[in-house]
Every structure is written in C-alpha cells, then in structure tokens.
C-alpha cells in the first residue's frame, strides 16, 4: 500500500511539473498575442 502511494506521488509530481512547464509556455504565448 505504501509502495503504491509513494510511486503514485512520484509520478503525480512529475506530471504536475510537466503541466507547469506547459502553463509557463502558455502564459508566454498569451503575452505575445497581446
């Protein structure tokens, strides 16, 4: 159970970090459009 939680937490973190880079890029594109 703990192993499942720890692995899920690791994957979730890196997934969020990848989405975060997408958000930062999106903010830049939005600024360029303006």
């Amino acid at each position, binding site marked *: 159970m*703990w192993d499942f939680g720890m*692995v899920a937490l*690791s994957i979730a*973190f890196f997934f969020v*970090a990848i989405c*975060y880079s997408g958000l*930062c890029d999106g*903010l*830049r594109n939005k600024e360029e459009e303006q």
Partner: protein
Amino acid sequence: MTANGWFQIILFFAIILVLTKPVGIYMARVFEREHTFVDPLFRPLERLLYKSTGIDEDREMRWTEYAVAMLLFSGVSMLVTYAIERLQHWLPWNPEHLANVVPALAFNTAASFTTNTNWQAYTPEATMSYLTQMAALATHNFFSAAVGIALAIAFIRGISRREMKTLGNFWVDATRATLWILVPACIVLALLLVSQGVVQNFRPYDHARLLQAQTVSVPGPNGSSTTQRITTQTIAQGPVASQEAIKMLGTNGGGFFNANSAHPFENPTPVSNFLEMLSIFLIPAGLTATLGEMVKSPRHGWAVFTAMAVLFFVGVATVYWAESQPNPLLHGVNQHVSAQQSGGNMEGKEVRFGIADSALFATATTDASCGAVNSMHDSFMPLGGMVLLVNMMLGEVIFGGVGAGMYGMLMFVVLAVFIAGLMVGRTPEYLGKKIESYDVQMVMLYVLIFPLLILGFSAISVLMPNIGLASLGNAGPHGLSEILYAYTSAAGNNGSAFAGLNANTHWYNLTLAVTMLCGRFLMIVPMLAVAGNLVEKKLTPPSLGTFPVHTPLFTVLLLGVILIVGALTFFPALSLGPILEHLLLHTGRTF
C-alpha cells in the same frame, strides 16, 4: 583566529581563483563541441550511447522539450532508485544482509538524490547495501550533477544566442557533462583520496575487539532501560573513495558513512580535507568563466564571480570569528588558542581539522549546496550556525551547486538588471536582450517558490507539537533553527542538517521530500522559461542607456538585490531562531 587559519582560507581561495579560468574555458569547449584532449577517449563512447538509445545528437530542443526531457529522465531515475532501495535485501552486494529500506524513507532518499540534495535521514552504513550505495545513490550523484550543469549551459545559451528557438539538446548536454567533466575529474580525485587513506573495497564490515569493554544503557519497552556490555566494535567498509569524489565534485554531499566527511575513512587527513573543499567550488567557480566565454564577455563572468566571492568571504570570516570566540557560559576556563589547544568552540569539530578548516568547509558546503560536512553544524555557535543558514537562504547562489548555482545567480542578474532599468527609467537590457514583463514574472516565480516552501513547512511543523516538535532534540530558538535549517537545506538542495532534529519520521520524510522536489524542479521550469524567452530575442545595440554588466557597480547592485531579497524574506524567522539564541546565550541561557 590564527595566522595559520587565515593562510589556509586564503590559499584555498587563491587556488580556486587560479583554476576558474582554465576549468571554465574547458567546459565552454565541451558544450560548444569544440575539440578537447579527452575526445579520443570519450567521443566513440558518446556516439555508441546515442546510437544505442536512438538519440539524434544534432537535433536541438525548445525550452519546453528540454524541460520535459529533463523531468522524464529525473522521474524515471527516481523510481528506479526507489525500487532498488525497496528490494536491496534480495539483490547482490549486500554482505551485511541489510533489510529493505522502509517506504517513506526510500521515497525521501530517492527524492533527495534525484534532486542533488543528498539529505540523509538514515545511517548509511546501517541502512544501505553496497549495491544501493553504488547503483542507486552514486549514479544519481553523477546524473543530478550532470543535469544541473546541462541546465546552466541551456540558460547561458539563452543569453548568448539570438533570434533562435532552441537551447541545445538535453541528452547531449547531460552526456557530455558526465563523460567530459565529471568522470575524468572523479577518477583523478578518487585516486588522490585513496593516496590519503580513504578506503575503497567490497569487504564485509570488520569487527574489532575493544581494549576496554563499554557498558551502555539501551532503551527497552515501556520506557525502561537495560544495560549492555559491548566488547566488539563494527568498523564499516565499502567503495568509499569513488563515491567520495563525485560526492564533492558534484556538490552532492551524501556521505558513505553517517559522520560524512568527519569520518576518518571518508576524509582522513588535512590534505584530503583541502582537496575535498577545493572540489566543492571547482566546477561552480569554473562555470562563471564558462559564462564569460560563451556570452563573449569574460569581464561579465568575472563580475559574477566577484559577487560570489564577496559573499563567500563575508560568510567564512563571520563563521571563523564566531567559532573562535570563547563560550560565555564557560567560566574560569582558558579558552584561548595556544600550541596545546584550538581555543574557541571545538564541540562537534574534528581535532585534525581545527576551527579554521571546519569553518571553511562549513561555509563552502552551505554556499555551494553541497551538504557534505566535516563538523557538526548543530554544534556551531548561534551566529556561526546562522551564517550557514543564510548562505542557503540566499538561494544557493554563492558559487552554488554545480549548474544550479550558476542559473540561480543568473536569475538574480536578470532581476538586478530589471531593477537598474527601473531606476534609470529605461527598458532594462541584459547583454543586448531586452528584459520584459514575462521574464520578470518567471524570475519572481523562481524567487518566491523558495521561501514559500521553507517558511510554509517550517510554520506548519512548529504548529504541530505531536508531529513537528516531537522530533526536536532541542527546545526554544535552537529548536526553531533546527526545523528552519531542515527545510532550508531541502529547498536549497543542500542536504546538510542541524542533526538535533530526528527527520526519519513520516512527516519529515514526506514533507522534506516534497520540499526537495519542488525546490529543484518547480524552480527549474521558470528558469528554463526565461532562457527560452531570451533565446528568441533580437540583439539591441548598446547605447548610453545600456547598463553595463561587467563593472563594479553591477557587482554591487547584484549583491544588493541578493541580500535584500534574502534579508527581507528570512530576517523575521532568523530573529526568532539563531539571533534570539545568541542574545539569550549572553544572559546565561542555553538550549
């Protein structure tokens, strides 16, 4: 303080100063793919690696692709590390038959080594098998350091290139950082350390019969204690020198033994100590020259180096002074330096290193987000310990971790240039690139994540007596310093500790792991975003309104920005921790 102590500090810095330019130029040549003397050795291996993994070495990446590649690489290698720790009991190279690492600690350690932090909430020689030490931890020492260097180079390309879309290829940069820089340097350093007596073997632990048996009290169930008679001592062994070399050169800091570089098998002599201190600063200092070389402005590189050097000297002088002072609570005791004693505060310090080398090592390791220790930081005087905290709180930019210090400092440079632009009422420019609102938004994101993690988790820990405070070894302001130090060390990816705090609990294992991951990767993303934005910009010709970034004025401004950001953010917490402890010490109270 002694003349000999100051001589060693100045000699240390003079050698770093001499090595900075050649190391920096070599690294610039490596990443600009120019010819180097190790090409015949590593170029065939590099080609083989790319061919076997299907990497196109000529394909360049936008910043988002670079970031995703780095995140996937780190994520997968973290999971592999976790798996090795959890399975080590059934895997080879475990002569002591050590048990599998428990899940929360395994997660904390995997996060710690992936992020170049090397925070250790365990006793390595009693927890990690030889295979785990080598395949899981030492490999991360190489990978995480290589990732840091690659990211710094990507940022420098963001400044030096113009009207382009790409920052390089992450796989190529990380491979070249490993093969061309870390591996050769580690082979040389490991051999030098072996020559000083650092052990390198795969033997089971030795057991020695004590000349004088010891009787110790062991806590038993229901709070009772039993006495045990100890007649033998277990002397841990292992492949130490090879791990020690990358531990220092990669500013990783995770010791093979619990006592880290205070252990005589990791750091046996003053010469090995000096080599280890030099290797902490070697690559971070060299990267300032790499910056100057790649942006075609060596004087800018030296201006950044000077800012780092000033902060280093202020730090080391303060720690050396604080640790050399007599303890005000010891009355009627001669605490002055003489031929027979070091004087000052020797608690937690090795006699073979003394106060000067302990203060220098502690300053270098907290400046450079290394985290290795040759003395126990928890035993430093309040002001000495505070300087170590401040070194980390400034964002690990005083030379900093390999790569991480350079890109952290460059984020402060962008902020300093922006503030200079505001002061003179002109569009801020950095080496011909206009700094616009998006750049500053990302810089502020980078700057704000760091204190949010440290102060947020510290505050929550302090508010939970049964979870956060129960782990403390000391009450009052020193206890607060211990918690603050733990989260600062984790967020700054440093890894050293005020060891009075027992961090091997579910709360600290999980929150410190999250702090390490956020302090590394959530700061890297906005940094790469700035690089990705800068690389596309046109070059603006210098004019009378351009702020020169190679002058003493620039260095002073940069120092001001770093200190003001750090002071404003952390001064209230510091005043409740080490500053209050210092004042209470002089009224006769200790914690």
